[in-house]
């Protein structure tokens, strides 16, 4: 078991890797070079650790994790490596310096110390040159992608000497505890990710200049052609840091084969030199291809004009026939304008390059697709893109340019790389020239795989119910932003009955971008606006009824949230019988920020959670105050760990580090729960009523008079306080869950009528941002 590790090199990558190890409970020694100028000999590592707290998005799942990183320096503390289970070298990308460090390590290391390098381009053969056999046996390359907490890819490179047991140990640990998606690559320059990724970035940038596109135009095209969330190419360079690219490029060019296509196509855009000499490195330098300038209290976005090299205010790109990209990519590429020419050029170059070098860099196509998806954020890998375009398209285009057809294109049957055959998903294995079943490995179930070979038990336009064997079902939401509207609630209601009679358990899970943004506020707003309050009322009532039914059904319900899990979705989590959460779960009740309150059982559940929480003092008020703090300040967790602190998850709920394992873990839990399952008992509450309300009101009034909250915040706060204190009850009366549900419903109906609330909801629906009014 790996419990303590040492990271050498506390730069951007080293410290972020160290941080991510603390997320799974490891202790980390972080060593950098000795500071000779400063009396504090560990100053470099210490500074890096402090910086971790400022990085956004945060590299750590809880602030307190930082305590588990112990700073040191190589001169004084190198011995500490022998107290570690694994050391990761993440120092400067310079072969000589790395070799010198390894020499030092070799001299003092214990025999079973695992050593890996985070090099991104240097082959393992060069790294271990001159080392003894023990070192070589224990050495491998573990190449993380930045930021390591969020980018799933881990490339592992072993030499012939690397001990297979060690390799398996690292792979297993990285998979289960670091949540990595691991590919084993050959010992070639840049491995798989950077070999293709750097080529892609450079091609996309150069061709954007050649085709006279603005950075916005290039970004929106690249974003939609390769489905890279958010950034596009120039946005990505801004995140990576333009200054880092030339080193990687240089190292790649020095090491790739002589006749490699990249050598032929490589060009250093003049604008890169211009930007580097002006320190326009990207986000870290606060200017890159984009920059934000503070003006009149807001931020204005500027972008660099690639032709004039001057910043201009940024405009949203307008691409003619833009919708075609998603509807019919091939047709889009046939249009005769610079946008389509650009996309065709970049796509063709990348796909052609992959078809030339696949054998050199990988032993299967899956690793290549995985590398681009999990390391560069593509939604589809290169072979998956070819499947969509059709290999005939590539053949045709290559022929037009007079290029020889890569042999792989002629080998594949039916012109596709992946296919479903006999209810099995298969890929084309180019070594044996045949289609082979994709093996997901133990402990991985993907709904996307199931969807390829099965039909849902029941389906509506916004949700489906799936049979995942052994009596377990998955309730999948697939509406826009996975929001919950009245039809979805009614469907869930019917599915509860169905599972109750014909299956054993229900897992609420999906594989969208995020779990769910909560209730469909747009629907509610619209119905309110056209005066159909009765329909609005129905949404509220049905939500409460269905979620209560979910909680007290005769079978276990396991929620498996990941990423955003807000409002109504959080209330599903709160009312499930068990939760198996991905570590990257951003769970919360942001209702108060929208001028409303949780009314599908959120208040009710938070009250009973804190009442039963042993770390909260006894007595009526502490639990209520805690619930008030969480709901009133619209808290959203930044990780599953934080969700436990906020009370959205129980300590007994499960956390899965690897996204691909989430459904399997949830299913294991469901199978465990169905053995003599008993539904939970209903909660009763003794709430303080008006006296408790007064205490909270005092607190709210203070916030208001000190100017920390607005008048409407105050009103919303008091409404929440009214519900949490139990309305007009008193401490001697016992009230039930229905009583609180009613309070929730009345309160939200009242808030929904307020103009300032409506304004907030309108604003978030239109801009995605919260309005403070």
């Amino acid at each position, binding site marked *: 078991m790996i419990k303590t590790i040492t990271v050498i090199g506390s730069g951007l990558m080293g410290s972020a890797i160290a941080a991510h190890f603390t997320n799974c409970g490891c202790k980390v020694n972080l060593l950098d070079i000795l500071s000779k100028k400063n009396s504090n000999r560990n100053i470099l590592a210490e500074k890096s650790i402090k910086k971790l707290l400022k990085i956004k998005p945060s590299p750590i799942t809880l602030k307190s994790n930082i305590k588990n990183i112990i700073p040191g320096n190589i001169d004084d503390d190198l011995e500490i490596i022998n107290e570690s289970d694994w050391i990761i070298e993440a120092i400067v990308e310079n072969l000589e310096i790395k070799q010198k460090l390894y020499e030092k390590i070799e001299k003092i290391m214990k025999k079973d110390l695992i050593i890996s390098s985070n090099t991104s381009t240097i082959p393992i053969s060069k790294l271990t040159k001159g080392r003894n056999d023990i070192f070589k046996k224990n050495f491998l390359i573990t190449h993380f992608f930045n930021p390591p907490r969020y980018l799933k890819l881990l490339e592992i490179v072993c030499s012939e000497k690397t001990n297979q047991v060690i390799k398996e140990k690292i792979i297993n640990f990285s998979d289960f505890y670091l949540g990595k998606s691991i590919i084993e690559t050959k010992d070639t320059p840049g491995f798989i990710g950077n070999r293709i990724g750097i080529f892609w970035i450079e091609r996309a940038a150069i061709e954007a200049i050649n085709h006279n596109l603005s950075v916005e135009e290039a970004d929106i095209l690249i974003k939609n052609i390769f489905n890279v969330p958010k950034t596009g190419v120039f946005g990505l360079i801004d995140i990576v840091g333009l200054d880092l690219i030339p080193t990687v490029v240089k190292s790649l060019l020095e090491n790739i084969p002589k006749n490699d296509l990249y050598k032929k196509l490589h060009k250093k855009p003049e604008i890169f030199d211009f930007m580097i000499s002006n320190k326009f490195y990207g986000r870290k330098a606060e200017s890159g291809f984009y920059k934000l300038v503070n003006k009149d209290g807001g931020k204005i976005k500027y972008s660099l004009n690639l032709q004039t090299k001057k910043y201009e205010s940024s*405009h949203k790109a*307008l691409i*003619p026939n833009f919708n075609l990209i998603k509807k019919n990519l091939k047709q889009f590429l046939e249009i005769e304008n610079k946008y389509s020419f650009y996309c065709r050029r970049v796509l063709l170059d990348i796909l052609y390059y992959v078809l030339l070098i696949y054998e050199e860099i990988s032993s299967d196509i899956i690793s290549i697709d995985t590398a681009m998806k999990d390391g560069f954020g593509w939604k589809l890998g290169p072979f998956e893109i070819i499947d969509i375009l059709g290999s005939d398209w590539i053949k045709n285009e290559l022929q037009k340019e007079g290029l020889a057809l890569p042999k792989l294109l002629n080998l594949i049957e039916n012109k596709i790389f992946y296919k479903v055959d006999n209810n099995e998903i298969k890929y084309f294995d180019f070594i044996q020239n045949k289609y082979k079943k994709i093996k997901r490995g133990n402990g991985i179930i993907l709904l996307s795989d199931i969807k390829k070979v099965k039909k849902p038990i029941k389906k509506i*336009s916004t949700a489906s119910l799936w049979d995942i064997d052994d009596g377990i079902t998955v309730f999948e939401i697939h509406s826009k932003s996975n929001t919950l509207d009245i039809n979805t609630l009614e469907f869930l209601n019917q599915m509860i009955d169905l599972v109750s009679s014909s299956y054993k358990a229900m897992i609420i899970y999906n594989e969208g971008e995020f779990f769910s943004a909560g209730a469909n506020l*747009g629907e509610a*707003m*619209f*119905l*309110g*606006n*056209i*005066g*159909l309050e009765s*329909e609005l009322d129905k949404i509220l009532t049905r939500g409460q009824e269905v979620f209560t039914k979910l909680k007290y059904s005769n079978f276990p319900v396991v929620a498996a949230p990941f990423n955003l899990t807000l409002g109504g979705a959080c209330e599903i989590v709160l009312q499930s019988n068990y939760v198996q959460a991905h570590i990257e779960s951003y769970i919360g009740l942001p209702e108060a920020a929208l001028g409303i309150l949780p009314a599908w059982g959120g208040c009710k559940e938070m009250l009973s959670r804190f009442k039963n929480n042993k770390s909260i003092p006894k007595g009526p008020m502490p639990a209520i105050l805690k619930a008030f703090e969480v709901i009133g300040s619209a808290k959203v967790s930044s990780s599953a760990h934080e969700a436990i602190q906020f009370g959205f998850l129980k300590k007994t709920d499960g956390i899965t580090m690897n996204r691909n394992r989430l459904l399997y873990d949830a299913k294991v839990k469901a199978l465990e729960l169905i053995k003599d399952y008993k539904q939970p008992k209903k909660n009763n509450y003794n709430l303080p009523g008006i006296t408790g309300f007064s205490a909270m009101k005092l607190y709210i009034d203070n916030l208001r008079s000190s100017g920390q909250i607005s008048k409407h915040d105050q009103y919303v706060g008091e409404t929440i306080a009214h519900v949490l204190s139990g309305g007009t009850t008193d401490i001697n009366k016992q009230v039930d869950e229905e009583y609180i549900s009613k309070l929730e419903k009345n309160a939200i109906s009242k808030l929904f009528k307020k*103009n300032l609330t*409506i304004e907030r*909801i*309108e604003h978030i*629906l*239109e801009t995605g941002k919260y309005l403070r009014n």
Partner: protein
Amino acid sequence: MVQIYKAPLKDMKFLIRDFINSESNKIYKNSNIEQNDLEMILDEAAKLCEEILLPINQSGDIEGCKLEHGIVSTPKGFKEAYKNFTENGWQGVSVNEKYGGQNLPYFLNMFLDEMISSSNMSFGLYPGLTSNAIEAIEKNASEDIKNLYLPKLASGEWSGTMNLTEPQCGTDLGLTKTMATPQKDGSYKLTGTKIFITCGEHDLSKNIIHLVLAKTPNAPKGIKGISLFIVPKIIPNSDGTLGENNSLECGSIEKKMGINASPTCVMHYNEATGWLIGDLNKGMKAMFIMMNGARLMVGVQGLGMAEIAYQSALHYAKERLQGRSLNGSKSLDKQADPILVHPEIRKNLLKIKTLTEGLRGLMAWTGLQVDIAKIEKDKFNKQNADDWVSLMTPIIKSFATDVGCEATNLAVQIYGGHGYIKDHGIEQLVRDARIAPIYEGTNGIQALDLVGRKMPMHTGRLLKSFFHEVKEYIEKNSFNYNLKDFMPLLIKSYTRLQQVTAFIAAEGLKDPDEAAGAAVDYLKMFALVSIGYVWTKYAEISFNKLNNDPEGFYKAKIESGKYYMTKLLPETGSLMSSILSGAKSYNKYNDEYFDLGFKI
């Protein structure tokens, strides 16, 4: 016999005194006028329209405009009428006092425009276009331009035009080709051809100020690269005196179906000097501000045409003796009964009457909201007034102009052969009214504006201004015994509209063609319910006035309302059925099938 028209002053005063009075006081206070003043202004306007404009309506149509050597001459009497109009300050009625206007309420302006449209729609276009130009300049131009142009426009000494359409672009202004090249002195040189320019050239005013949409050389493609320019026929000196002629001319005027006394011009700009109005590339935004007002006023034209059609047809129906009443003769002293005795004639007359009176109230209320939005301090009240106006604009424009067409056609029908021949001037009404559903955005476009823009805007917030107002009214009055013949019908149609709105919103999210397919029916339904609400309010008011009703005005209102609620409002039912059945029957109809009946 000629066209018959007396301004409906009693009805307008009813609206001022009884219908909008609950909220109009705020407006009076703000602009230092009293209700009495408004009524006097209406009386004066009525005289102008009945005595000056109506007599030259038919003759103007017959004579038309003429173009000779680039100069357009207007029909006989128009110059004198325009002189009378401007000298009495009618052009500047709702213009800001700062620029020499009278800053009178917008709703009043709507009454005036209605009278002008009834009495002479062609004439109304000259000052109407000037008003549009004034609004566009006031809301977008720099102070220098405002100070130079607005006083002259407000006095009517100069007139204005709007230049949008080009041969290759009508509804889709993104295709604009007219080019504006920047000059060193900050001005622009404009080159291009604009068509369908109402009153682009004429002999009524001393100068004509063209507002022209054009593109600058490096502007973004499409609608986002369009800017608005002011291009005077004669370039004024900085003191407002006239300088040299600009290089633009009227190339030809269109021969057209109606509004023959107003010239529809082809305008050539050949390096004409102009100045930017508002921000570069934001021409459409500037246009839209103006377009809302212009669209409401086209709706008013529809109403005006319906009113004169009603009065003419009523006059004829009372005078024309043909046949006998089926229930025994009514006028035994005469050879035959007047055709008014026939049920179909009565039904048609009441159809026009109740639609015009209902629309007039809806427009007055909407005009009042324009005024309220201008002065209201409370953010949400102001927003609500603005929302109401934005929502109602396509509904009023489209429905009122359709009513204008239907009413004038019904008038011809009542006149029979005498309507079809030219002598009575009734066929002219049909021809004049026919343009209104087309210009300022066709009625089809209005319906798309309602369903595609106004409905989803701010998640339905615009709808709220209507639905919540009616809902509150229903809640307040559902047990009002007086309204027992009104409320159930209003509630039924209102509920239908709610259902259909929710249906279209949901369907539209799945397939925009479904929403677009239902748009025209939906707009009509919305208009019918809105007018149903107006009639219910009329009835509520009238019941309280019955004890002092010597002429039976209020009694008549109640009876008219009953006709509307039982005969016209129920059409919401068939419209609902049609909408709920979806748009597939035409959206998915095979293109090939259209011509199978005659293709060889």
